[in-house]
Structures are given as C-alpha cells and as structure tokens.
C-alpha cells in the first residue's frame, strides 16, 4: 500500500480523487481505511471527506472480498422472475448483507442493479462464473459445491 501511495504523482487535483480510489480498489480489492488516512495527509483533504465521497458510490467497498465473491443481479426483470424470496433466503443462508464478507473470508456478496441479461434471470455470478435461471435449490447446490 505504501508503494502505491509513493507512486502517486506530486500534485494531485481533487478531480483525480475518484480515479485514485478506483485504481486502489482494482489493485487491492477494497478501500483500506488506513489508505484513506494516509491519502488525506498526502492531498490535504480531511479523511472524513474522502470517506464520505467513497461511501457515496456503489463501486467502493471497505472490506476485502471473500474467496467466493457472489454477485446477485437485483434488476427489475430478475426481481419479478425470482421465486421463493431468493434474495432474503440468500441473506439468511450466508448470514451476510450487501457488500459484506463472512468472518472466515469465504463468501462476500454484492448486488448489481442490472447485469444486462434480463432474458436469463435471475442471474448469480460466483467470481467470474455465471449461473442463469437460478432457483433457491440451485443456489444451495452452487454454494455447497464451493470449497
């Protein structure tokens, strides 16, 4: 992380803040709160303000992703095609909420507003594998097959 901060150029404008945060997240998978503190000293913007900006947007997460990052499409078409209260059952099965990671680091979940494949819903992605027309039973099978 220190290397990343050192690699930033001398003068940073406010408009570049978002891309700095995005690059950090792409590299490390999440926004570390220590990073925000160090960045704040570096660019002379209060840490609270940076956190406020980061937490405003959907992209940023403040906890590392789990080994199995589960993305769930919460688009309108997927919602009306979903049966068995799939989303609330997923909350229950994994005991997690949006953008959270389980304590053993195995699972993390994230809701995506629309993945753009409305014909095939409900859609769930585990890391980069996609599952279509997922029912509650399918989801249980998918989960049990992950180590």
């Amino acid at each position, binding site marked *: 992380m220190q290397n990343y901060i050192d690699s930033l150029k001398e003068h940073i404008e406010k408009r570049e803040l978002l891309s700095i945060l995005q690059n950090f997240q792409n590299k490390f998978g999440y926004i570390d709160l220590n990073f925000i503190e160090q960045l704040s000293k570096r660019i002379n913007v209060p840490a609270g303000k940076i956190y406020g900006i980061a937490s405003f947007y959907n*992209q*940023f997460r403040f906890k590392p992703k789990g080994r199995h990052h589960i993305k769930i499409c919460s*688009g309108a078409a997927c*919602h*009306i095609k979903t049966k068995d*209260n799939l989303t609330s059952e997923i909350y229950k099965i994994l005991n997690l909420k949006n953008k959270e990671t389980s304590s053993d680091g195995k699972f993390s979940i994230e809701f995506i*507003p629309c993945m753009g*494949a*409305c014909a*095939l819903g409900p859609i769930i992605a585990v890391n980069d594998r996609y599952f279509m027309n997922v029912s509650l039973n399918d989801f249980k099978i998918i989960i049990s097959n992950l180590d």
Partner: protein
Amino acid sequence: MTILKDYTYKKIFQSEKQLPDNTLYEYNINVPHIFVEKSSCSIIAGIDKTIDQIKSYFSENNMEYELVEVGSKGLCEYDPVVSIQVPGRAIISLKNIYSNIVDSVLDSILNNILPERELIIGQYSHPELNSWSEITEISDIPFFKKQTRRLLKDIGNIDVNSIKSYLDYGGYKSFGKILTTHTHSEVCDIIEQSELRGRGGGGFYTGLKWKNTLNNNAEKKYFICNADESDPGSFAGRMLIEGNPHLLIEGILIGTYAINANEAIIYIRNTFDLAIKRLKNAIKQAEISGLAGEDIFGSGINIHLSVFASPGAYVCGEETALISSLEGHRGMPSPKPPYPSEYGLFGYPTVVNNVETLCNIPYIIKEGPEKFKELGSQNSYGTKLFSVSGKVDFTGMVEMEMGQTPNDILDITKLQNNPGDVKAIHIGGPSGGFIHPDDFNMNIDFDTFNNNNMWFGSGSFLVLDEENCIVDVTKYYIDFINNESCGKCIPCREGSQRLLEILTRITERPRTNKQHETLLRFKGVTQMEEVSKLMKETSLCGLGQNAPNSIISGLKYFRQEYEEHIYEKRCDAVICRNLKEYSINVDNCVGCSICSKRCPSDAVIGSQRTAHFIIQERCIKCGICESVCKFNAIIVR
C-alpha cells in the same frame, strides 16, 4: 487491427461501397465467416466458451476461417447467437449455440446441410448467393419486421472492433460533411430544426441546448455523454455502445464541434466492462485515423475524447449530479438555474447528452432534418429504443417509431398477445409508472406522457402478468430509490424512507387483528398519497420528483389490489411473503410428521399417520413446511 493511417478524409468521403441493408459484411468470400454476437447478455449465456470451441474446431480440422465479432441484434432470448456464412451460400443465423453443440452444427453447415430446425433463427438472402430452402428471412420475422430500426440498422452487421467496417457502412461521413461545409451555429440550426428531444427522459430540445452553450462565450467548453445507464431493467444504451461504438463517437464529435468545444468526456458505468473496452478501442482507432485528437484532417480543430468509468450512483443520471461527480465530489445535484450550459463542469459551459440522443445525430446530419421528422408524432420525432423485459417471449431491445403504443410493442415481443394476459406494464424504470391494460392504446410520445403525468425515461419496459404483485413491484422500486437517494434534499431522503415503511407495513401481517390496526394500515395509504404529492412538488431533482410515479399510478389503476392487501390481508399473486397463509390439505397429508418436526414455531400439530393442522396464530410464514413436504399437502394462499 488494420492501422488506417492512410485513411484520409478524402478517402472516407469517396468510399462509396454500398452495402445493402440487413446484410452481414461482404458476400464475396473465400473462407467460411463466423459472426458471433458478443454482448453483455451473451457473455452471461456463455458466448466465450462457444468462441473458444469454434476456434478449436477450425484448428483441429486445419481449415481457414474468419471470426467476426458483432453486437447483439436485440434478441437476448436467443443468446448465444452465431451466424455462419459458407462461401456461395446465404448467411444463416442460429440461436442457443452453446459450446457443446458447436462441433455438430459446424459439421453440418460446412457440408451444406441444415442443422436442427429449432436452432435456426433465419437467413439473410442475397441475389448473388444461394439461399437455404424453406428458411425464413430474418427481416420477415415479426420481431424485426414491425420495428423501425434506424439506430440499430447496422448493429449485428458491423464488426465492432474495426473502424473500417463502420466506414464501409458510410460512417463518419456526417462528421466529415459538417467539418468542411458547416459552421458551428449551422450544425446547431440543423439539430434545432429536427426537433430532436433528449432520450434520457427529460425530453429537452437538443438543438436548443447546444445553441445556448455555443452562445456562451468562454475560454473552454465541455461536452459530456451520459452513458451511466443504471435503471434496473434498462440496457438499450449499453447494447447500442457494444454494438456500434463508432456511431456514438461520431455523434459526440459532431456535438463537440457544434458547441465549439475541444474536450468530450464519456461518463460510463464502471460495471459495463465490454462497452468500456469497445469504446476505448474505438477512440484509439478514431485517433489513429485522424478522426479525433489534434488538428482533425488539417482543419485546425482539436477534439479530445476520454472515457470516465463512473463509480456508480443512480442519481448521477441527473446532469448537475453527474458534473459534480466528474469534479471529484459526491454526486449530488444542485438547483437549476444556473444551467450547465452557463455554468457546468469546473464552471465552464457544458452540454450533457444521453447515448441514444447522440446516436441520432449522424443520421440527422446525413439525411437532413426533414427526413428525420418523417417518423414520429407531433412534437416527438424519430424513434425510441425500449428494453423489453419481464413476462414476454422475446426479451430484448426494440426500436419503435415515436407515437406507437404499448400494444405494438407487446405484439412483437409476445408470441400471442391476448388481451388479459398482461396485467400491467411498468414503463420508465424507478422514475416511471404503471400502465393499465385499458391504456395500452396510448401513444408513447413526450406530449401524451407529460399530459398523463407519466414518464418513459430511458425506455425500460417491464411486462407484468397475474403472477406479479403491483404492491411488491412498487416496493421494489421505492426500495431502489431509497437506497439511491443522495440525501441532499429532505423530501426525497425522508419521503422515500417513509414510503418504503408504509409499503412494508401493508405487505406484512399485522400483529393483532384488532380494528385499529387495519385503520392504521389504511391511514398509511392516504398518507402515502400526501407524501407522494409533496415529494413531487418539492424535491430538488428529477429523481425525487419522479420517484412517487409508481405509487401514484399504482393507486390510480390498481387501488383494489392495495385494498386487498390492507383489508383482506391477501396477496392474490402469492408474492408478499408475510401475507401468505399456509394450511394443510387433509386429503394429501399422510401424517409423516416431518413438517411438525421441522416447524420452528411449533405451529403444526397432529399425531402420526393422521392429517396435521397448522395453527395460524403461531405460524411465522417461513415456508419450511412447504419445502419439506413430499406429498404436496401444504396449500399456500
């Protein structure tokens, strides 16, 4: 990728290679051509595996071939779609080509034998080529036949990774034309005459916006393309970029020239990986060919294009919020005036236009405003894209003439459009509202919708049937608004929270059955109407003002359904989980006792081998009994 350094402006103008409409690429080929429709939808369906399989098939058989990546024609239901052209034969388009059937399909087609009928969509005939017998023309398929495909005309034909392919279809000619023969204000005049209105939802006249910005003298101006399409259920803009990235870039270049700016920014969702990749590639190609960047074709005009991957917030669809996000702040809207055309990005005059709006520009310049106005109805000219999803047979993107009706869209997206099959249509995403079947003959244009207090926004078109609950869908959208409200103004921040609470309360069973509980629940509905009105009148931006549309239209047309939820505590669609009532069918129950053992609240009673019974007061509606019963004895109502 061929580097097109020699592609001078003159060459672009003189290349008059006319390709017939609806024909893929060229007809005179020596090796088999495989066209794969790679889009965000087909990636999920597994097109990457299909492509790998195609590649390995040809390398195993030591055959030469050409693989062309094209955009999706809009039929998401059929993904992965692959079209194949063998030398001398018409192109045949196939659906659902998963990797496991690639080998057998290629085997038969390369030997001039048709594959199984259920895999075939249709063919593209050409006078010079042998057609396949008894196969329908793609253009005769109802889904395509009844559309007016103006923006989508070349999608699915153009190689998305090649600027040459776009140029062959007459691309960048409009830009070349204005660069040599038109002044900045003349371009604005043409767009103003065409009466093109913003397709993002607001419906503001694009030409007027451009003119206002042009007339503001400033040392710097910005042109922004809003590609942050984030309504749940709206994917038309994304597919447009994926299918024809150069069309958008040409529109942006013309717009940037028209307002005399030097910098254009495309603000696009970070999750649209494929669209971003193709856009960046297209920009690079345009720069290498001298169509963008410094000193375009020696005219002394510089236009720099850049892509900003937005970190994602629904409210950033509002132009002032988008600008504040680009400046590196929280994406919150600010009151207008001042309008961005006076005081926009970093204080300079700025134009913000939607993807679909900009894709109309090259056509208007090429064919003239009068030709553009041939389609459409009074005050709304041209076409509109709709992302049709929900309970239809063909989910996908359709392009309709302005002023068509919801029935027209249902006609092409459902196999049989019987009256009564569709309960309602939700149009316009979270900011839109419901349309009742009685109004399915209403014209979809700006004036009709404004008069009815409706909004078609970016064109999401969600079809609901009897299995969907209006209250549940409304709750879903209000929940979305509640999450996405930026929190700046109180009506939207608190209003959406209260609306969600009221909706949650009526979709849950009251703790007691006393009369005043029912009264409280009903009071919620009257309060809901008040809150909605207040939000509409006092919210700062379009997000808050349009948020209660679902509730207002829902209460107007489906009041009975709300009343059923409140008084009878009944959800006919059996969607609202907490209103469900579980009981046991005595005839089917064999008394295995598994449900009573698994019930977490001891609500199921009964002795072994006799029919059981559920005590309603104890039931917590978890649904476990239903999932464990092997005899279908649990009735859910």
